[in-house]
């Protein structure tokens, strides 16, 4: 791994970390636990398209660990990992199969986040009735996924030069 790659990893982890923090600061009235803007997912999806699928996984795991120990109760790590990893997995599959453009991949990622977290919640409290809250969470998943997808596509267009260097 050359030094420019190391620097890029550092930059992207820092960005994802800052975005997670910004999310804590923006007071948007969400009506259910687990509803989020998912700003950090913007960094992950840009990394996935610009750097590669594996790199995005590394970033995602690092971000979850950092944010989990800094701002949240470490017990919430389980929820974050379930959401983050399922989201990464489904986005990677959708990107590999070229089924959707970046917008579709981002929406799949947003909803996968909700599904992952709700699965853990169901196992955690041992109560399947939590599944009924999925439609509410999916609304936020679609809306934030769409926003992140549009923003991501715009950003990637402008960062193409930088990523061309990365992939050399």
């Amino acid at each position: 791994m050359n030094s420019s790659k190391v620097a890029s990893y550092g930059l992207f982890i820092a960005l994802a970390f800052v975005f997670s923090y910004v999310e804590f600061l923006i007071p948007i009235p969400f009506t259910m636990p687990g509803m989020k803007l998912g700003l950090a997912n913007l960094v992950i999806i840009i990394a996935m398209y610009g750097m590669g699928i594996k790199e995005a996984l590394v970033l995602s795991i690092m971000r979850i660990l950092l944010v989990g120990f800094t701002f949240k109760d470490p017990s919430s790590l389980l929820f974050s990992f379930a959401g983050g990893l399922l989201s990464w997995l489904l986005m990677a599959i959708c990107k590999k199969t070229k089924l959707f453009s970046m917008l579709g991949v981002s929406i799949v990622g947003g909803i996968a986040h909700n599904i992952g977290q709700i699965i853990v919640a169901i196992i955690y409290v041992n109560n399947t009735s939590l599944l009924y809250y999925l439609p509410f969470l999916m609304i936020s998943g679609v809306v934030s996924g769409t926003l992140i997808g549009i923003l991501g596509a715009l950003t990637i267009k402008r960062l193409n030069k930088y990523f061309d260097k990365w992939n050399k």
Partner: protein
Amino acid sequence: MKKNDFYLIGGIIVFILVAFIGLYIFRTEGTMVVVSVNEKELISLPLDEDTTYTIHHDDGQWNTIEIKDGYVSMLDASCPQKICVKHHKIHYSFESIYCNPNEVFLRIVDDTENELDAIAK
């Protein structure tokens, strides 16, 4: 942007609509309110007893819940925007009130369904 993206969005919106209609049609009157703080269940209160219950958080914040005539509402809270206080009263199963700053989540459950769960365990 691909055609598939629009099919995806359309499909999800249809799924959400159908799910909401289903939830509305099959909703039942709740029997208990489950109070959870920070994703951990704190207490369950029966809806048929009028009462108020105050949660004091570790950081000095608080939420007061009121149960009256089978309806649950957030009577008052220390959060700045008071969105949870303005939320309409909840009564039917799967209705919920969430106080985001204090991470208090109130959800109505139907006890009969919990019994089914208990049998399944």
